[in-house]
């Protein structure tokens, strides 16, 4: 019998599995789709210090900043600095008393936040005038009353979850993605003692017994709790982001939407992300669609502060469902971002725990609290070490791009991207090139993904298909959205998995379908041209679906 079965492969589930495995518990992690397939992969990718909590709870900000510092320590390669600008607009160039008062209050606010910045190696804020703001970001709207700068960090959330899962496995946990729960096993007094599992790809069924079961399923959490007859109440909210085809700015830009909410323009890897919306969601978390009014809302906010947004092409729109804590009354945006750990013993399901709410940025701390609760219940487990022991690739400084390029004869751009995604493990990935010359080539030139990186993910990172490879390596997430890479990646998949041609091409089509889903809500002129080219490549020339 295991100590702990963790259900859910988001940042909480993978974080809990890692923490528990490192404390010496015997652990299994299951996920019905793939790591970060839900809200953990559909957020702004920020490791922030919780500046917004300052207004209500200074201690939350302090804790968030400390944890942001810890994440820098354990995954230094995965974090990238996003300096931020908060522009204050004027009407027709004259700062009113209200504009100046707003600027002054912002100055006080960020001066307060500055006290916590050293905890996460963040830079101090600065009050900037219109000229200074435009010197930093020439694309900002004209005639600002001024603005503030501050400092935050971004992360690739998909890799964060994958690395947590890999680290858990290295500490002895069994990892099973593409595995869903069919039912919970019950013992004396209704004790939850494990679960029936079904592999989503092979259909294989099994039962796993565990002394504790952790429900870390985010918006799907209520469904799992219901299997134990427990009501888990959430107020789920849908958040939409759009991705632009380019880096629009060097700074993150904070904007005000038409209804007064904060919407951010974020430089993220080679793209720009604009988001997010926040609306109550009553639908199925497995079927979240983006509507064009949501896209227009985001672009309208961004355009007011950064008119050049309209020159970029919107690559796609995507959505996730936040597992926000239940509260009746407040507007979505005012709901608490706090988290709660439930022990369902009193609800008649001892052995079952759930975690709900929270933020990506504080996942490590939340996992620590969650595993503390399990350890108390089980009466075993060493102290937490997730804040000191690095994630895979974070053990040492990543080798320089020049050295990787020279030694392994790969394009410098691909070496740079590989070094970001894999840190000190980059040479281990590139060592695969010694097998065959071909693995040095780029499968996805937009994101600099080498065939070797795909092979590594298929062999060592629990990737089962092209959609998993997208999450591991950003395959197909660049400007052509899969037009270049779906075929080559399918070919590599076939080799690595000894699959049939039909199976490999089904993988290519699945990637194209998933990319199309994000394309549909943003079908403007350029998106239509791209779709014509992509479909020409795969369905006209490639005859992917065979003869009509």
């Amino acid at each position, binding site marked *: 019998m295991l100590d702990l079965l963790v259900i859910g492969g988001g940042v909480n589930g993978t974080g809990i599995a890692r923490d528990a495995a490192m404390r010496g518990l015997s652990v299994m992690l299951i996920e019905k789709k793939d790591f970060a397939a839900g809200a953990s992969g559909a957020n702004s990718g920020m490791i922030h210090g919780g500046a917004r909590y300052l207004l209500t709870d200074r201690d939350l900000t302090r804790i968030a900043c400390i944890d942001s510092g810890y994440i820098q320590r354990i995954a230094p390669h995965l974090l990238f600095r996003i300096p931020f600008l908060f522009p204050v607009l004027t009407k027709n160039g004259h700062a009113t008393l209200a504009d100046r008062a707003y600027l002054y209050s912002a100055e006080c606010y960020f001066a307060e936040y500055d006290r916590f910045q050293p905890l996460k190696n963040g830079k101090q804020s600065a009050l900037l005038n219109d000229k200074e703001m435009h010197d930093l970001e020439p694309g900002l709207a004209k005639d600002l009353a001024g603005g503030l700068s501050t400092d935050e960090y971004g992360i690739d959330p998909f890799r964060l979850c994958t690395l947590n899962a890999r680290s858990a496995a290295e500490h002895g946990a069994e990892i099973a993605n593409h595995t869903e729960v069919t039912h919970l096993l019950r013992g004396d007094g209704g004790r939850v003692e494990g679960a029936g599992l079904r592999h989503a790809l092979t259909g294989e069924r099994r039962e796993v017994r565990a002394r504790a079961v952790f429900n870390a399923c985010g918006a799907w959490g209520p469904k799992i709790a219901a299997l134990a007859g427990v009501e888990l109440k959430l107020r789920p909210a849908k958040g939409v982001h759009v991705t632009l085809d380019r880096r629009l700015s060097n700074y993150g830009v904070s904007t005000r939407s038409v209804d007064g909410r904060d919407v951010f323009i974020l430089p993220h890897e080679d793209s720009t992300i604009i988001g997010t919306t926040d609306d109550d969601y009553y639908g199925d978390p497995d079927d979240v*669609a983006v*509507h*064009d009014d949501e*896209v227009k809302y985001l672009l309208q906010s961004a355009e007011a502060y950064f008119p050049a947004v309209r020159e970029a092409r919107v690559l796609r729109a995507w959505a996730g469902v936040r597992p926000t804590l239940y509260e009746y009354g407040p507007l979505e945006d005012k709901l608490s971002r706090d988290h709660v750990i439930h022990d369902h013993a009193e609800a008649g399901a001892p052995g079952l725990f759930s975690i709900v709410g929270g933020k990506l940025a504080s996942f490590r701390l939340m996992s620590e609290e969650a595993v503390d609760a399990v350890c108390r219940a089980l009466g075993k487990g060493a102290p937490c070490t997730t804040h000191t022991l690095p994630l895979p690739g974070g053990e040492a400084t990543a080798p320089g791009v020049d050295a990787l390029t020279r030694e392994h*004869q790969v*394009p410098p751009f691909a070496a740079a991207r590989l070094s970001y995604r894999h840190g000190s493990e980059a040479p281990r990935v590139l060592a695969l*090139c010694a097998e065959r*010359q*071909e*693995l*040095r*080539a*780029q*499968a996805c030139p937009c994101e600099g993904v080498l*065939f070797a990186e795909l092979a590594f993910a298929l062999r060592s990172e629990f990737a089962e298909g092209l959609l998993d490879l997208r999450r591991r390596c950003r395959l197909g997430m660049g400007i052509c959205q899969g*037009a270049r890479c779906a*075929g*080559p990646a*399918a*070919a*590599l998949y*076939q*080799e690595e998995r000894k699959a049939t*041609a*039909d199976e*490999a*091409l089904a993988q*290519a*089509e699945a990637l*194209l*379908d998933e*990319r*199309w*889903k994000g394309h*549909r*809500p*943003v*079908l*403007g*002129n350029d998106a*239509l*041209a791209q*779709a*014509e*080219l*992509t*479909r*020409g*490549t*795969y*369905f*006209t*020339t*490639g*005859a*992917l*679906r*065979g*003869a*009509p």
Partner: protein
Amino acid sequence: MNADVAVVGGGMAGACAALAASKAGARVIEISRAPGATAVSSGAIDFAATSSGESLRAGAERLALRPGHPYSLLGKDLGAALDGALLLLRHSLSSLGLAGARTGADGNLWLASPLGRQKAAALAQGPIAAGDLHALPAGARLGVAALCGGQAIEARLIASGLHQSLSPASSAVALDLDFYPAAADAQRQLAEIAADLDRPGRRSAFGEALSRAAKRAGATHILVPTVGLANPVAAQAELGSAAGLPVFELLGAPPSVPGLRLQRALEAALEAAGVIRVRGIAERSLSAQLQIIRGGECEQVSCKAVVLASGRFLGGGIRCAPDGTLGDSALGLPAWAGARRRIVSLMNEELAGQRAGDRHLALEAGLRADSRLRALDEDGRPATANGAPVFAAGAALGGYDPARGDGGLGVAALTGRLAGLFAAEAAR
């Protein structure tokens, strides 16, 4: 500038319109902004999907039953138009060794696709057409050349896909070559390989490498990703004699070598026919029929008929304005996606299906035309450019999707040729 007929667009539809009008005695000017969809096409010219053994005409007539398909406009003239287009292409593109169907009574070729599927097309460039999979002798063993880098990985997928569809009568196998052995060779792109093969001595060395690999694998026929860029007929012959086996070429995915060749051959055919070619952006003129914008210059074009053969979204002929309104980019004529003038990106099944390969009316958007291929205005009447009739051809016409077997470059050639003839007639 003065001309009888002004053709906007220099891809397959525009070239066929200009060639046909020129042959009919008109003085023709062809205006194109840049290479478009034709230049990234695969090297296959598809008129209609057919089942194996079915005639092209039968396939085309089936498409003509679909409301909105350009073939549905042509009534009983469709068969003659099909024959005429095949003849025009074979005649004008002889430098590519174009082969396949001679008339509508013939069937499609079945060509190896870059994904290892079989792609049906009426015509293809010589080295591609020679690889008609349905014409392979029983017992043939097709060796797919795996050269270097990503191409080598893809070659193994192609070989396994073809093997699946060819067996048990014949088989396919990947040929691992030692032609590009260096680590840096992994980064070579197909167009670079094609250019390399055109260098003195390289193609015969490649042929010898193919011969060695084919012997090892017991291949009887060889499929290569490219024979070179410049002269496909001579290149195929050279490779074949060096390899000692028949050598065929795969269709190309963008950026496609055969597509580049096709574009060049069309341009050469236009030059040879005496068509005046102008690079620039064509737009509506207040004083003449069209004006051409080139950098800071603006030149008026007086003509007696206009042909819009400017492509769809990829070619730039059809634009979707920021508010979703569809129109042609030169004259601003209305375009439709199904029954809609605007693309509203609501989650609307009618305009955009759920899966990438589904039918999407948004991607079939284009101009409407009458049975004489005259472009129609908002009220359904033939449109004019300052009094001159306007014809439409190729992807600028709505109602067909090459990705769904509705015909691709073949529809462009067929409607282009007709639009050119009609325009020349109107100019007389």
